[in-house]
């Protein structure tokens, strides 16, 4: 009997990941045994502390380029940048949930560890160089999000949203594993790219073969199925039907969290798959993805116009933004990767802020999300109105906000990648989108209040909105701060 060789494990590569997971597990127990009911915000503070700590643990790793677990997990600047973005998303989501949960009467301590598990799954997706790890990351993320979506039990809409999300998510998982099985059948490996000389991987396999010499049917069908699964997770257009319902039904902090986190993590994994494992197949997948992106941008933004419910409108707009993010993913260039990261951070801050404003308008038992509830907000809560205006302008892509720079970045990447028509579609749809974003601003500043809605601001919420608004403006006015960082994430794409 041959001994199984366990490869040496480099713990530094997984240090931020271990910090988050370990903290979440301990926090779950601490919450049960030490935090009294009604004081669950203590758990929230501890959770935020854990995320901050993980961010600090990740700091000295900047600049490293290593892998462990037989190359299944990699740590490069791209993964680290994503790690910080996801930690920030998690922390802001927790901050805006601190007051939301007790106000809605759904204060349960496990909310915060669940968010941490989801954050760790996103980090895992950013670091994965192997289809098995990718599958585990997606499933860990999805299962925690199913639970979080249904967190407002027994509110009907929350339960229904969770069920819909679970059924479609599980359905997508079926496609994902079947696709991986087919890819494995063709190539005999599930490793995306070689991290050590002589290691078998998809990139290696495709590098050895020429197109004419080998029949790639299984690999292509498998990649197609994987792409369908990613389409469901990211909510690209033919696979987006669940998004408005789920985003509307889920508790608002969870909606904010998943509208940015899930998209970012799944697209980061897709970026690694396409740009590092399958770049030689780009002539085949590029037309497919370009069409998907164009349709996604168009239908997402057109769908948003018809909505009078602002939460639903933001759900549709997030579909459109997935299309813009996809532009950066598919160009297989350094500019594309940088644009993707910049856009992801800008969009995350903006969208989290916009949903935080919705939370302020949301009262127990009654959701004030219709456009009428925004009328005259300027007179009642100038701070909220100003912040919302910043977020809407950033989502629309108006300077001097981060959203403008992000859009500029990804459009430029698409243009340089020979996808000029797609960049044009992007600009056109941004113009369409400006209509419904500006409509919210017009309501807030130019109309008298229609309904008596008393927006409530708490410390946590104010902090979250301020951070998001400040980030949106700072990165919009001084984008070089961030561009200098993302330029160091030079991912060895297209090798």
């Amino acid at each position, binding site marked *: 009997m041959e001994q199984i060789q366990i490869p040496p494990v480099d713990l530094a590569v997984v240090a931020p990941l271990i910090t988050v997971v370990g903290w979440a597990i301990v926090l779950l127990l601490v919450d049960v045994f030490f935090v009294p009911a009604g004081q669950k915000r203590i758990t929230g503070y501890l959770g935020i502390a854990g995320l901050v700590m993980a961010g600090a643990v990740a700091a000295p790793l900047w600049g490293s380029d290593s892998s462990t677990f037989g190359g299944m997990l990699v740590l490069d600047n791209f993964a680290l940048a994503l790690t910080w973005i996801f930690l920030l998303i998690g922390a802001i989501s927790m901050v805006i949930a601190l007051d939301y949960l007790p106000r809605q009467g759904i204060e349960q301590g496990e909310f915060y560890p669940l968010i941490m598990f989801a954050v760790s799954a996103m980090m895992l997706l950013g670091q994965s160089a192997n289809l*098995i790890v990718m599958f585990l990351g997606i499933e860990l993320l999805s*299962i925690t999000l199913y639970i979080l979506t249904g967190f407002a039990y027994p509110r009907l809409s929350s339960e229904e949203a969770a069920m819909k999300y679970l059924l479609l998510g599980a359905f997508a998982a*079926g496609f994902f*594993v079947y696709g991986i099985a087919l890819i*494995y059948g063709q190539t*005999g490996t599930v490793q995306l790219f070689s991290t050590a000389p002589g290691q078998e991987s998809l990139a290696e396999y495709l590098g050895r073969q020429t197109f004419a010499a080998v029949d790639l049917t299984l690999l292509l069908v498998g990649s197609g199925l994987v792409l369908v699964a990613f389409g469901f997770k990211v909510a690209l257009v033919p696979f987006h039907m669940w998004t408005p*319902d789920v985003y509307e039904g889920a508790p608002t902090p969870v909606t904010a969290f998943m509208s940015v986190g899930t998209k970012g993590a799944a697209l980061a994994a897709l970026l690694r798959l396409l740009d590092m494992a399958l770049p030689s197949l780009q002539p085949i997948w590029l037309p497919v993805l370009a069409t998907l992106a164009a349709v996604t941008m168009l239908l997402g933004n057109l769908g948003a116009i018809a909505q009078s419910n602002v939460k639903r409108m933001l759900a549709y707009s997030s579909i459109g933004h997935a299309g813009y993010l996809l532009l950066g993913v598919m160009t297989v260039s350094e500019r594309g990767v940088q644009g993707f990261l910049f856009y992801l951070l800008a969009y995350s801050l903006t969208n989290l802020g916009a949903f935080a404003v919705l939370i302020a308008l949301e009262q127990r038992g009654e959701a004030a999300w219709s456009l009428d509830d925004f009328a005259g907000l300027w007179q009642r809560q100038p701070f909220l109105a100003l912040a919302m205006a910043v977020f809407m302008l950033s989502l629309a892509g108006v300077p001097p906000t981060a959203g403008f720079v992000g859009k500029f970045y990804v459009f430029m990447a698409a243009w340089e990648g020979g996808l000029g028509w797609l960049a044009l579609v992007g600009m056109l749809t941004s113009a369409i989108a400006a209509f419904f974003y500006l409509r919210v601003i017009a309501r807030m500043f130019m109309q008298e209040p229609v309904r008596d809605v008393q927006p409530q601001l708490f410390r946590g919420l104010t902090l979250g909105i301020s951070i998001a608004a400040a980030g949106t403006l700072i990165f919009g006015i001084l984008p070089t701060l961030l561009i200098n960082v993302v330029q160091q994430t030079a991912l060895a794409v297209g090798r």
Partner: protein
Amino acid sequence: MTDAVPLSWVLGLSGALFCIGLFAALARRNLVGVLMGVELMLNAAIINMVAFWRYLEPRFITGQNFAIFIIAVAAAEAAVGLAMIIAIYRNWQTVKADEVDSLKG
């Protein structure tokens, strides 16, 4: 064993299983039925994985490995799914997919 049963038969079986699962997931009205359909789809992938391992790459255990991961994840998903179906039943007194429709627009 690999001589008696050719690989294509095993792949045919898993393909058929996947399609049955897909049909169940799309056509069943009962939420439990939909969940069972999804499980069938996952099981089809497991058969594929193990078959490819046994016939093509018996030296590396990647296929087996992945099969075990899928089983574990499918169990977790089923646990959450069934819990959610119970929660739905308490609220609506039904587990029919088309009767659970408060969100629209």
